[in-house]
């Protein structure tokens, strides 16, 4: 669906996007991640033909972004960062305008707008002025705008920016649902959202691609030592016994407020020590109320990747 070949954007001296190449297949949901100022929005703006590339090319649905920009824009439904809208227009009026601007006839636009408003749960505000809407609703209007002309590809730049947790959850479900019909490229800072919805993530930093893989592969590649926590009422020699379990490298303990002891076990990355710990506990007759392994998240992978990056550049200097 998208093929970017050494796409580059230079702003008066500084390079915001530096020769990045990536592909997005039809039907994928791809997360586009990176710290602030990494060049995400710039890349998306080049793909949507709002900016032209300083170097390199990209094709969207087979059309070149420089030569066939009208066709490219027809294929894409784009939701820009910060969701710019006309505050003095009413919701339905705005969506109708956008649908028709994107080439729909009046009759088509009526049903398309109704459908988009339905998808984004905008019923009830259709006659409200956009300027009076809450941020959550404005965001939904922006999303409805992006998908009103039934584009094959949705490009969403931080669609959940500034939403409350329950709205973020709704948005996540919506993105998942939309993923069944559209190819989606979504830029965001909310990593657990990406972990749950995206087939693949592309991580960029300082204009360069740092990783491009499925969230689970990125996490697996972390090689984090396993962290297991155990809350129990145990005998005094418990700490020593836990240390003897094969694979466990370190154990610490602390008292909880209500008289239980919490043990933190660090183990090798590959082995799961929960079962031997439980076996030990039953053998010694400890009362156990919690036994849990903390899995590394995409957030860990993300932070790890970027801190490695920093220490590398620091050592190179």
């Amino acid at each position, binding site marked *: 669906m998208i093929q970017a070949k050494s796409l580059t954007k230079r702003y008066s001296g500084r390079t915001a996007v530096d020769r990045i190449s990536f592909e997005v297949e039809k039907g994928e949901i791809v997360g586009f991640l990176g710290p602030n100022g990494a060049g995400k929005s710039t890349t998306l703006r080049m793909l949507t033909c709002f900016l032209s590339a300083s170097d390199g090319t990209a094709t969207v649905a087979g059309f070149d972004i420089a030569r066939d920009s009208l066709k490219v824009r027809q294929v894409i439904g784009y939701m*820009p960062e910060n969701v*710019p809208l006309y505050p003095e227009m009413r919701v339905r009026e705005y969506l109708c305008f956008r649908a028709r601007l994107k080439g729909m006839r009046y009759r088509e636009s009526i049903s398309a707008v109704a459908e988009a408003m339905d998808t984004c749960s905008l019923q009830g505000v259709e006659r409200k002025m956009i300027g009076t809407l809450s941020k959550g609703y404005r965001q939904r209007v922006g999303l409805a705008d992006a998908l009103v002309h039934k584009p094959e590809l949705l490009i969403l730049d931080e669609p959940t920016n500034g939403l409350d947790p329950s709205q973020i959850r709704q948005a996540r479900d919506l993105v998942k649902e939309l993923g069944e019909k559209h190819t989606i490229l979504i830029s965001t800072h909310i990593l657990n959202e990406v972990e749950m919805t995206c087939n693949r993530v592309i991580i960029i930093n300082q204009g360069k691609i740092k990783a491009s893989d499925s969230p689970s592969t990125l996490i697996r590649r972390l090689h984090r030592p396993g962290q297991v926590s155990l809350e129990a009422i145990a005998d005094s020699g418990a700490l020593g016994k836990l240390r003897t379990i094969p694979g466990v490298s370190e154990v610490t303990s602390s008292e909880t407020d209500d008289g239980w002891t919490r043990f933190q076990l660090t183990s090798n990355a590959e082995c799961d020590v929960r079962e031997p710990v439980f076996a030990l506990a039953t053998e010694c007759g400890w009362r156990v109320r919690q036994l849990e392994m903390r899995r590394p998240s995409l957030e860990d992978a993300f932070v790890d990747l970027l801190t490695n990056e920093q220490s590398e550049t620091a050592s190179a200097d």
Partner: protein
Amino acid sequence: MHAFQVLFFKELRSFFFSSTAYVVIALFTFLNGWLFVGMVRAMQTHASPGSLIHNLLGSGWFWMGYLVLFPLITMRLFAEERKMGTIEGLFTAPVRTSEVLLAKYAASIVAYAAILLPLFLFFPAFYLITGEAGAFHSGAVIGSAVGLFLVGVFHLSIGIFASSLTANALVAAMMTFAMVMLHYFLGFLQNFGIIPDSMWSEFINYFSTVRHMEFLTEGLIDSRPVFYYISFSVVLLACTHHVLESRKWRS
């Protein structure tokens, strides 16, 4: 063409659904009404070589109000889109830059015509009320309409150009007003006797709105001002198009 229509009507709606439009129309019409009455009174007592509309459009008071119209009509056209960020949605829709530009320009011409319309209704109204057909003659009215159309189209292209240069509507308005005033007063230069050379005064006459209007309001339609205003409008629109396109590669 489809996108042009959609944008054109959207711009018209946003103009005619705003209360400021009606305030501007009312104030401008009031100013003209006051001038109209004043001119009629003056012409009752003093014989005048020119027609009523010629005298009215020759008045400095008219031009004071008239030149303010252009920044008001055009300042928001692109500056506001840039400030709000809606320009991103606009140009990532499958529309040509030229369609957007021409739609906004055409809508501003319609808005301008709507503001001037009441002035041209004064004349039939005056005839209906007084039965005096001699107060104006159709040649002068048609010539004036053509003149105001040409000058307006030119000034609007100045305004739309200024609006594309900045994200601040107020700055766009001030630039437009400055350019429009400058152009208008350049045409006056020889009246101040600053320019003795006759070749220079010929040159200045060529782009003097005052001089053009003097002839047009008598009903004398010359091809030179027509060519002058139309070609400069085209040049300014081409510049605006260039400015809008340049956002892609400028930083």
